[in-house]
């Protein structure tokens, strides 16, 4: 029996069916590898256990519960790679020296920085961003606070503008029970 016509028929049917399947199902997610550059409007907020927000008098924002963050030496958050904190991580005062993701920012008189202990992974599906920044840590006053979690957001493939948000409950330490709320926005630069 000659199998060639059968194979040809199968390949043709599969080729015809695949666009239809793609249209019927959800758009496939594509991994975004590169830098989520931190732009204007990015911030950190700290929620207190009673539901109010920590007021940072040194915030540049008019509402002191929003601590505005600006890009660090690497422009922002890199996916697919780890952005480690330098060693030593702090100066004598307790200011963070982790300046790759954000420029260390004054929080109550001492600067905090961000670093990652594992590579963030973020993918886009249509205009929807999802992924994780599980290894994200905030470093402040000679202390390290885990601030990683799953992230969600939006992305425009045309303009490469993005918004990423997540929150992370602080467990242990002086801010135990507080929640960090993060919003990064700006443009994405593919690697």
């Amino acid at each position, binding site marked *: 029996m000659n199998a060639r016509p059968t194979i040809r028929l199968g390949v043709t049917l599969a080729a015809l069916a695949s666009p239809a399947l793609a249209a019927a199902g959800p758009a496939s997610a594509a991994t975004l590898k590169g830098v989520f550059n931190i732009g204007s409007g990015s911030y950190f907020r700290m929620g*207190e*256990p*009673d539901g109010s927000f*920590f*007021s*940072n*008098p*040194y915030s540049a924002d008019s509402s*002191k519960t929003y601590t505005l963050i600006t890009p660090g030496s690497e422009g922002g958050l890199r996916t697919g790679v780890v952005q480690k904190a330098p060693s030593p991580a702090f100066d004598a*005062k*307790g200011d963070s020296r982790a300046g790759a993701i954000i420029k260390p920012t004054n929080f*109550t*008189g*001492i600067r905090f920085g961000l670093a990652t202990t594992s590579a963030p992974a973020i993918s886009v599906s249509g205009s929807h961003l999802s992924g994780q920044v599980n290894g994200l840590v905030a470093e402040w*006053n*000679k*202390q390290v606070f885990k601030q990683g979690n799953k992230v969600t957001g939006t992305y425009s493939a045309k303009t490469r503008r993005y918004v990423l948000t997540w929150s992370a409950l602080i467990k*242990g*330490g*002086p*801010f*135990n*029970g*507080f929640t960090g709320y993060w919003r990064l926005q700006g443009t994405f630069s593919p690697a």
Partner: protein
Amino acid sequence: MPAERPKRWPLVALAVIGLALIAAPFAFGMFGRAPKGAQMINSFAPYMTNRRLDGFQSDLRYIDGGVLGGQAELRALGAAGGGREAVRFPEFVTFERQWRAIDPDMTSMLDTIQANVGNYRAVAALPSFRLFPWFFVIPGAIVLLLVGLGWLRPGRWRATRWVLAVVGVGLVLAPVAFQMFSRAPKGARMVSAFTTIETRPRVERIQIYFSEIASGQGTVQLDLIPALGRAGLDARQISSTYPGLTTLDAQWVHILNDMTPMIGAMSDNVTNYQAVAALPSFRLFPWFFVLPGLIIIALVAAAGPRRRRDEASVARDPEFSSPLNEGVR
């Protein structure tokens, strides 16, 4: 020579004591709680010194000085500006009000902690809490083992009872060696004193205080001191007229460095403290060793050597009479 056999009932009682010693740590949840106690003792070590606690009291005085300085500034600026200064510095006015509650509460808390430095030292000088369950289990297991040996190999009872007696004496002496009679009650006093401190609501209140103090310091540095500059005072005049403001400003990073780890230690040890507080009172701990020890000694004495009737009857046989079994008659 006739074999010395232990009496049966003291052996049974000794076995019960051995089992009780093994069971006690499980009954009191010591394997879970004692390591938490050890963790708490270690975590508190950097803070439970008079030097460090004096430092915290100084931190409170710096903040209080800042508040007093701010009040003086508002009075002075108010006199010059028609009394509207409070409106210009609402954050400071809010902080001033909050400080009235924070200061006595924090001072009282630090006083309580400081009053327990000696008690803490006494507890910290005890062997690690992690070992405590084993201080019961190991003697208990040894007692059980020796009772089993006494039961199965009665011929060796003389040696076995000596080892049992040593275990009993060891239990009696252990609290003396570790100075438990003086240290354990101090530990009990510390646990009792911290009842109102190491609670989640109290720690959360301290965290909120920290947030309020941070906000207050911010208004001192960012609002009050610049306002004095705008009123025509240079840095030296501000420092000499309002030393409380400039001292708080200068000491703020030190206060942050000092206080946040302490708040962290307090917060991280709430569950550890609860575990320690759930243990039986520390006052009882020496007796948990002494009483079983005394009972073991008494039972070993009561177990005594008992000679088997058949051996005794053999001994009474004139054919077997010898100077060695004279005492049996």
